[in-house]
């Protein structure tokens, strides 16, 4: 009898231990189950594609995700306000690359190195040329996400009609093409771009400045933007406006995209991510007609490109940093990247080497051009200047005024060089 009781007590104990260990083991697999985290990003088509994958994430980790897409006009302010006030609204941020120095310089981004180490995240699967940018003072503060470079979107049918055997590589060939294809009477223009007051003007012009041997600063961070190389590039940029549809001076990127989708332009400079939209029958009047080539450069110069794109980071004010890292890992995984890129209409470009090498991804017509541009690309704020917002604003204003022909390119860049010097001096760069 006593033995039986002891046996019964023993079995009950063993069952309880087994149950508890099961629960504990289960919990260890989903340690953050039940948390809700918030991520914010641009309200781009790729965000929609990512949102559609969130149920899978919740199934895997038990974490609920609230995704807050924001329009380009207000995303910068909202993110700055959240982190400046330490509100903790966002647990994961996707921000635009020029703001890296601003955010990291103000100490708002979590150091991701420890997360990478703890979870053995394959950082070497990222293109090494890109990764240097995302470190601030030695710490990894963000992972690149949805990269894009500017490339020329051209109408293959119009090229064939005009008898062009190959796509232009050099500046002079490019002018020949733009001129020949420019036919306003037939409602087709040779070239289109966006010199209006946004960062777009910058990523359109900078590759040409760099290709021509010029740059914004020299080694000592003194402005060299009004040197002949840069002025020549601006002059080239401005003279091309004669092949562009009317209203070029205030053309924003959305109008630029629409003009191409509606077949108004034979060539235009667009971000690589928009390649996905060209073959979307719901949006495009030029399905199957668009090809791509890298931004041309001057003979004697070197090919150059501007890389842009977003990233994934964790703000200092987040209250769920580890759970946020789970989401980052998920979105940055090869499978999800690939799925997003292959979703029709998502305008999503992968960044990891393993995804970019995937044959299905390589089949996409713009990817080889993207990779070719990536080899020679630099970020626009590659000096990681914290006060970049004001510099960028004056830079784009200068470009627009030159396109409006209010100032000659030399005058425009002279004025801008003086202004940049003032801003950098006030910020304490010249001791």
């Amino acid at each position, binding site marked *: 009898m006593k033995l039986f009781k002891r046996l019964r007590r023993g079995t009950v104990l063993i069952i309880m231990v087994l149950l508890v260990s099961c629960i504990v083991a289960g919990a260890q697999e989903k340690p953050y189950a039940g948390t809700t985290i918030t991520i914010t990003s641009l309200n781009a088509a790729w965000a929609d594609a990512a949102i559609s994958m969130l149920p899978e994430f919740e199934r895997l980790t038990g974490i609920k995700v609230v995704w807050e897409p924001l329009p380009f006009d207000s995303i*910068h*302010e909202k993110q*700055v*306000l959240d982190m*400046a*006030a330490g509100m903790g609204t966002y647990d994961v941020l996707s921000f635009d690359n020029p703001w890296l120095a*601003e955010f990291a*310089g*103000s100490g708002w981004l979590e150091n991701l190195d420890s997360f990478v180490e703890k979870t053995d995240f394959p950082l070497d699967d990222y293109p090494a040329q890109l990764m240097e940018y995302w470190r601030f003072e030695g710490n990894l503060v963000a992972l690149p996400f949805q990269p894009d470079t500017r490339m020329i979107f051209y109408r293959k049918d119009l090229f064939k009609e005009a008898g062009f055997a190959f796509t232009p590589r050099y500046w002079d060939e490019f002018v020949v093409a733009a001129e020949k294809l420019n036919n306003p009477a037939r409602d087709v223009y040779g070239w289109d771009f966006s010199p*209006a*007051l946004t960062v777009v003007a910058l990523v359109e012009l900078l590759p040409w400045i760099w290709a021509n041997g010029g740059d914004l600063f020299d080694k000592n961070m003194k402005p060299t933007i009004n040197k002949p190389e840069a002025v020549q590039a601006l002059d080239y940029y401005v003279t091309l406006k004669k092949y562009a*549809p*009317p*209203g*070029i*001076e*205030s*053309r924003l990127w959305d*109008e630029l995209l*629409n*003009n191409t989708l*509606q077949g*108004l332009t034979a060539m235009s400079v667009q971000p690589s991510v928009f390649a996905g939209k060209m073959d979307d029958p719901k949006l495009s009047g030029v399905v199957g007609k668009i090809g791509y080539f890298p931004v041309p450069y001057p003979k004697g110069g070197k090919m150059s490109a501007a890389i842009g794109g977003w990233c994934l980071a964790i703000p200092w004010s987040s209250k769920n940093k580890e759970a946020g890292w789970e989401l980052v890992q998920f979105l940055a995984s090869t499978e999800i990247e690939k799925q997003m890129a292959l979703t029709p209409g998502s305008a999503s470009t992968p960044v990891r080497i393993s995804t970019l090498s995937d044959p299905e991804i390589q089949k996409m017509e713009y990817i080889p051009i993207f990779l070719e541009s990536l080899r020679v690309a630099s970020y626009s704020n590659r000096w990681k200047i*914290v006060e970049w*917002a*004001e510099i960028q*604003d004056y830079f784009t*204003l200068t470009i*627009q*005024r030159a396109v*409006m022909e*209010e100032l000659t390119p030399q005058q425009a860049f002279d004025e801008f060089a003086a202004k940049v010097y003032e801003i950098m001096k006030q910020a304490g760069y010249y001791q």
Partner: protein
Amino acid sequence: MTHLCLRLRSGQMEKNSKISQIAGKIQPYVFLLPAVIVLLAVTIFPLIYSLNISFRSVTLLKLSHQPFVGLSNYIQIFRDPRFYNALQKTAIFCVALPLQFSIGLALALLADYLPGKGSFKILFLLPMIVAPIAVALVWRFMFNPNRGIINYFLQAMGFSAIPWLSRSGTAMASVVLVEVWQWTPLFFLVLYTGLKNVPLEPLEAAMVDGASRYELFRFVKLPFLKPLILITVLIRLIDVLKNFDLFFGLTQGGPGVSTEVLNLYIYKAGFKWFKLGYSASLSYILLIIIILVSNILVRRFRTE
């Protein structure tokens, strides 16, 4: 017994009446309190806070560091060519006000003269009701040089397309056009109502005396309308001086800085460059300008 009760009761009533007296005095303030707290929090506190930071060097990127710099921000404003540009553009934009007024008055007189039901005239009011930012975005589509409907009609009638928002001169004209389109109905509404409510006796007396239609308007109706005109012009003047939505939606200050009015510059300095201290001092300059201009307006009206 009753005497005692009565005395007791009246004693109690005296005590009650003292409490109820105090309660009665505090009561209105208690009811006002929620509104006052909201007013303090939403209006007075931000006013004082922004005045404070206008004397400091504050950037949104480092809120913890707010050194006092005295009048440095204000001095920087007076050395800033972009500020003078903003002043000039705001002043140019004010031309929208006499346009709204005169068109509104003309329409009101016309509507007053025409017989007919008022319900038809309600259609005139629609532009006022739409949110300014929606107005701006829809007009931006209409102004599109290649696909917009305005250029479509112009070209159909044989004129050449106009680059509305991409040339300095026409960009400002376009914003003025939209502003006049949206707010003329307000003047129409106020003036039409005013005209319909002119007291009959002076009107009839003047008609009997043989006044012409013009004299009737100038000497009988207009004086009666004066207070209405003053109020409406004042409200609209303040709105025009601090207009933001139309410029943000239509031009973003472009092309170049040809439509960068003061309020837009304040926004850029504060929320694009994150220089909150500078932005705050700019906004106080705008406030002073609005106060001065409104004062001048009211005084001129009073003396007339």
